[in-house]
């Protein structure tokens, strides 16, 4: 049996772990709220841009935007992987990276359990340090790792720069399409890895009008082509921004849950240690009492 002092030491360390995880849980909760707020704030913008893209794409002549069409045929498939910069967030990264492997298998770029491979027909882009470390450790070639700024400090401006680089690669023929694998936020307790096609753009369905006619009964200034050229990149930025916000929200939701579990586990452990401690203490006292009584008896 561990000595009283050892147990006391363990109780102390478990208690301080509990304090830390509880603090981390609270930090995650506030951050979660903040990102949720931002995601909510960007919704009107997203809806509006989407509505206009839908309307314009419906009337635009075929082939008016290269971003709406499949890119260079033989070029690799671009995949953006969105993970977190920091750990301690449960299965958040594991789930996402598992979904990456599943996706690669489903497209026939990788066979299950084939070990580290760097498929020639895939170009990987990574957000988040964890994903980058995972992939580079396994010998995958990462075409671009968006390291700066740290994910949680990303502003719309930064997303714009990233989006521009991705579009550039597509236009230059380095990739034939671009899929984004990121965690989608469904509710505070459900968030799953998901995939969204970013390029070529699949125009959202125009809000079904009265007759669903494909005409635009509005004055367009200066012209459809000009607007489309300006709008589609904006649409892409917005989409990337939303996916990142959703991923970050999920990350903090996941971190909050795992920190809560850790806090609960620490409490449970502290409790059982305390019981062991008290029992040992009691035993000690009893033993000492017996000794005293025995000693007194012997003296009589």
């Amino acid at each position, binding site marked *: 049996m561990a000595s009283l002092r050892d147990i006391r030491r363990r109780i102390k360390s478990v208690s301080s772990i509990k304090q830390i995880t509880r603090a981390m849980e609270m930090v995650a909760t506030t951050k979660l709220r903040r990102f949720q707020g931002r995601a909510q704030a960007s919704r009107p913008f997203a809806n509006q841009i989407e509505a206009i893209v839908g309307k314009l794409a419906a009337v635009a002549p075929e082939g008016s935007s290269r971003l709406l069409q499949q890119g260079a045929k033989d070029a690799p498939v671009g995949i953006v992987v969105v993970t977190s910069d920091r750990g301690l967030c449960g299965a958040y990264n594991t789930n996402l990276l598992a979904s990456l492997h599943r996706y690669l298998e489903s497209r026939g770029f990788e066979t299950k359990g084939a070990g580290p491979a760097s498929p020639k027909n895939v170009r990987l882009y990574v957000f988040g340090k964890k994903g980058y470390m995972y992939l580079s450790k396994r010998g995958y070639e990462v075409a671009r790792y968006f390291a700066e700024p740290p994910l949680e400090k990303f502003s719309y401006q930064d997303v714009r720069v990233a989006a*521009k680089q991705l579009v550039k690669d597509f236009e230059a023929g380095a990739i034939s399409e671009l899929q984004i694998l990121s965690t989608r936020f469904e509710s505070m307790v459900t968030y799953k890895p998901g995939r969204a096609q970013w390029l070529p753009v699949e125009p959202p369905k125009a809000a079904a009008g009265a007759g669903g006619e494909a005409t635009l009964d509005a004055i367009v200034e200066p012209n459809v082509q000009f607007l489309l050229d*300006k709008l589609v990149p904006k649409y892409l930025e917005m989409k990337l921004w939303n996916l990142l916000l959703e991923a970050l929200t999920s990350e903090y939701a996941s971190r909050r849950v795992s920190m809560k579990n850790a806090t609960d586990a620490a409490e449970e452990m502290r409790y059982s240690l305390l019981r062991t401690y008290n029992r040992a203490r009691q035993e000690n006292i009893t033993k000492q009492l017996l000794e005293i009584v025995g000693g007194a008896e012997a003296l009589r």
Partner: protein
Amino acid sequence: MRLLVITPEKVVLDREVDSVRIPGTEGSFGVLSHHAPLLAAVEPGELTVTEKGGNHTSFFVADGFVEVGKNVVRLVVDSGEPVTDIDLKRAEESEKRARERLAARVKTDIDLPRAEGALRRALQRTKLARKYRM
């Protein structure tokens, strides 16, 4: 009619107005109540709002679009703020930065449209800030 100014960060403005002047790519134009449906591109500049009582307020808006329909004017822009909120110092700094980058373009392969856009925004911001602060 209702005017909405929407940016990725938030809805900057949502109120009933009398008329509005919008900086379109083809020049500034006015929109009154019950304007015909319109879809136009917006460039960085001044957005003037005339309220019901005849009061004018000015806003800075960046690149974006405007959609007019059903007596609702929706501006979707990258950024926007009341002229009184413009950070003149910051705008001046970014103007300087943009000029430097444009001047150095021969040596480095910078993103030309981006620098030009930044310069345009900075110029409009400083212009508006000066116009309304002095």
